[in-house]
């Protein structure tokens, strides 16, 4: 592999600033003196610009898919509840409802069983919602 080929392979990370300082210095020194690699560098800069042109956020996609993830994970009613609410998502076993009794069963959270022994698991806000 020629020095030019080695440098050429590093150019994408030279442009995004992801090279070690040694490699960065090597690339910088090489393109000072090599027309062909300077040309390659210009092309890499152009490709980067082309590929990363758009960086806006996607709130609608995020929320829509979150509701579907919740539903698929086992929450039938979640689609009608505000995203971010801590009220949804907890299905306690029957014995968990008895006041004062420690929860010994497992708690079904979003389609997954979480074993709870002795004390009730508290989420932020401490709110749970039973399902029959």
């Amino acid at each position, binding site marked *: 592999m020629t020095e030019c080929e080695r440098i050429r392979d590093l150019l994408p990370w030279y442009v995004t600033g992801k090279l070690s300082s040694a490699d960065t210095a090597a690339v910088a020194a090489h393109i000072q003196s090599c027309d062909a690699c300077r040309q390659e560098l210009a092309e890499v800069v152009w490709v980067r610009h082309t590929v990363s042109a758009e960086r806006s956020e996607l709130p609608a996609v995020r929320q829509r898919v979150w509701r579907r993830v919740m539903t698929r*994970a086992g929450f039938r009613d979640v689609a009608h509840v505000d995203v971010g609410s801590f009220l949804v998502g907890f299905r306690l076993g029957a014995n968990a409802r008895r006041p004062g009794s420690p929860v010994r069963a497992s708690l079904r959270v979003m389609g997954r069983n979480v074993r709870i022994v002795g004390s009730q698991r508290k989420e932020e806000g401490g709110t749970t919602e039973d399902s029959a």
Partner: protein
Amino acid sequence: MRTDEALLWAIGQADRAAFQELYDRHADRVYRFALSFVRNGPLAEEVLQETMLAVWKQADKFRGSSKATTWILGIARNQAHGLLRREKRGERLPEESTFEADPAEVAEIDVRVKQALESLSSEHQEALHLVFYEEMSLADAAAVLGIPEGTVKSRLYYARKALAKELL
């Protein structure tokens, strides 16, 4: 702010709040990565959905030997490729809710650029996206793609040359 790794550990303990935090942090990234080679809003959303479900189910398998972002995008890549394969074989069942992606949400790129990117193989598209859009290091990109670093380099080179040929 909790680190991604701390969130994954908490998700492994079925912590829903942690899951939502991780979701909010990575959803756009996963969606855009999927979109970079699926090139179809609804399909990319399906990839996001399946990826996050897999994260929920497998968070306790995350070992911390890789970065969380690398791990999540690796899952997304498997989901996306699986989806494309099933679609090609005509096995994929359509999601119940069909909808048109809001055009304002799909990256607004020049039509010519869009066509040129679409003409690349998915291997070339995803490599371009990870390195230039996500600005991943060579090692991280290789980890997500599951290929040697040398292959990442050559894919980027050929993808760049193909784009230049189309557009310059």
